[in-house]
């Protein structure tokens, strides 16, 4: 990297981290209100939030929902991506566009339509309903990244595996999956983070036992503004940071982005 690029990255880092740093500072405030700079520091808001089931249970629910919807979306996206890239069935582009179309509908409109639709088939305000809503929302992100990475990989490796007598399941695990894994990771990360912070659909579809963290934060913020919200945000951030560090450790975040040369990749 040359000097200019380094200077630019430093500036960008300040820009990217500024709001996050402020939230951390506010979460350590001793004041009752969010005042900046804080008059003093204390850990009381963390103590308060960690004891509060109306934050901790939704936090756990959100992690669960984020993971489940990401896994479900991956199970739908991977086979679809495989045939769309390798076999190019007639209308492949149209199918791709269709699979990515939930991106285009504002989440508020999707949320209320899903509420009435799912309720009419008996799934309103159930766990499955909420999960379905989140899968619909995160599917495009996963599909797009998997498509991008897979279409860049060399089809001849798979052919070689078959020629050498690998059975399809083995070829999938040993050849195809490693080829798409970076896309799965990047897409999975987007999917998880989006589900983790999604509020419009969760507001309509959740119930008391599966309420998500963004819903409870929003409910709290309507009538209260104290550093507790900052504290729960920091806890949430810390969890994601730990996950990212683990990914870095075992896999290397660097490999989350990978070559992407194929033409189909961007037909979203």
């Amino acid at each position: 990297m040359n000097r200019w690029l380094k200077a630019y990255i430093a500036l960008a880092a300040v820009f990217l981290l500024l709001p996050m740093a402020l939230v951390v500072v506010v979460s350590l405030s001793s004041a009752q209100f969010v005042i900046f700079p804080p008059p003093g520091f204390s850990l009381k808001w963390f103590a308060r939030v960690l004891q509060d089931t109306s934050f901790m249970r939704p936090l756990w629910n959100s992690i669960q929902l984020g993971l489940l919807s990401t896994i479900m979306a991956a199970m739908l996206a991977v086979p679809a991506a495989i045939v769309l890239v390798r076999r190019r069935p007639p209308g492949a582009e149209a199918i791709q566009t269709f699979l990515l179309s939930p991106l285009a509908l504002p989440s508020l409109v999707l949320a209320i339509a899903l509420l009435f639709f799912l309720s009419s088939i008996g799934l309103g305000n159930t766990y499955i309903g909420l999960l379905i809503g989140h899968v619909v929302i995160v599917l495009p992100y996963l599909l797009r990244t998997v498509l991008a990475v897979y279409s860049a990989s060399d089809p001849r490796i798979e052919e070689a595996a078959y020629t050498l007598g690998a059975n399809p399941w083995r070829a999938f695990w040993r050849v195809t999956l490693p080829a798409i894994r970076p896309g799965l990771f990047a897409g999975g990360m987007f999917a998880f983070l989006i589900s983790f912070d999604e509020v419009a659909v969760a507001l309509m579809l959740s119930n008391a036992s599966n309420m998500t963290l963004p819903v409870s934060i929003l409910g709290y913020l309507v009538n209260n503004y104290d550093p507790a919200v900052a504290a729960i945000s920091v806890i949430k951030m810390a969890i994601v940071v730990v996950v990212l560090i683990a990914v870095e450790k075992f896999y290397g975040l660097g490999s989350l982005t990978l070559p992407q040369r194929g033409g189909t990749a961007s037909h979203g």
Partner: protein
Amino acid sequence: MMPNRFRLSTLAFLAPAVIGLLVFFIGPLLLNVEVSLREQGGGHGLAQYLRALGDAYYVKVWLQTIVLAACVTFFTLLFGYPFAFAIARSRGPVKGFLIFLIVTPLLINVVVRTFGWMVVLGRSGLINGTLRAFDLPTINMLGGWFAIGITLVHVMLPFMVLSIASALEGIDQALEQAALTLGAKPAAAFRYIIWPLSLDGVITGTLLVFSLSIGSFVTVMLMGNNRTMVLPVMVYQQLNLSSDWPFAAALGMVLLVTVLVISGIQLAIGRRLRRGQA
């Protein structure tokens, strides 16, 4: 070209995703279309659409919505590209750190993040506090397009940067080196080698960022004022204050069609650019 087996397996692989979305996305979408066609008397018709498109004010809001999303997309691309370049050109822990840095905006709840920006931009916030400390005039940055734009660009950067970075990684650095060695100026190397090859990532990034920012309402509602009205905020008002679902549904359809049409145009431009280089 292949017998039935080929088509069957293709179908089997595509079916879960396609059927899933047909039921759980197109189903609600059709319901939404039906609702948007409801008229006050109880019949069905285009009244809601005529109301939305026949009024100069709503048309203006619709255009504002598009312009906001386009500007956010443009600036995200402008500021994101060098960052993506840095990611693509670095290795090891530095790269891991840069990727971590770029996803940080996604780690904070949207409301909390927006409040963070209010502290930065507010009249007694970080920037104005600093200006005042140096006896410089302060600027009121809250409550307008600038504040909305900066907040949106911040959270859209990860989508743009990661899309472009993965495209840039694919470029053979030897190609660039060769061009430079042969005497090409860096600008020319960028113009003729790097930029064309990164187009795929740019198109992906702009598509994601455009459709995400055209639908955002929390940020616009908190950071904006009456002048900065956009369609998603109107949808919110219709649903929560007027309890007018049909009109909200119609506005939602207008947004959906807008995004689909503009995405189509983006793709077509991308295809032409690519063909131009081939």
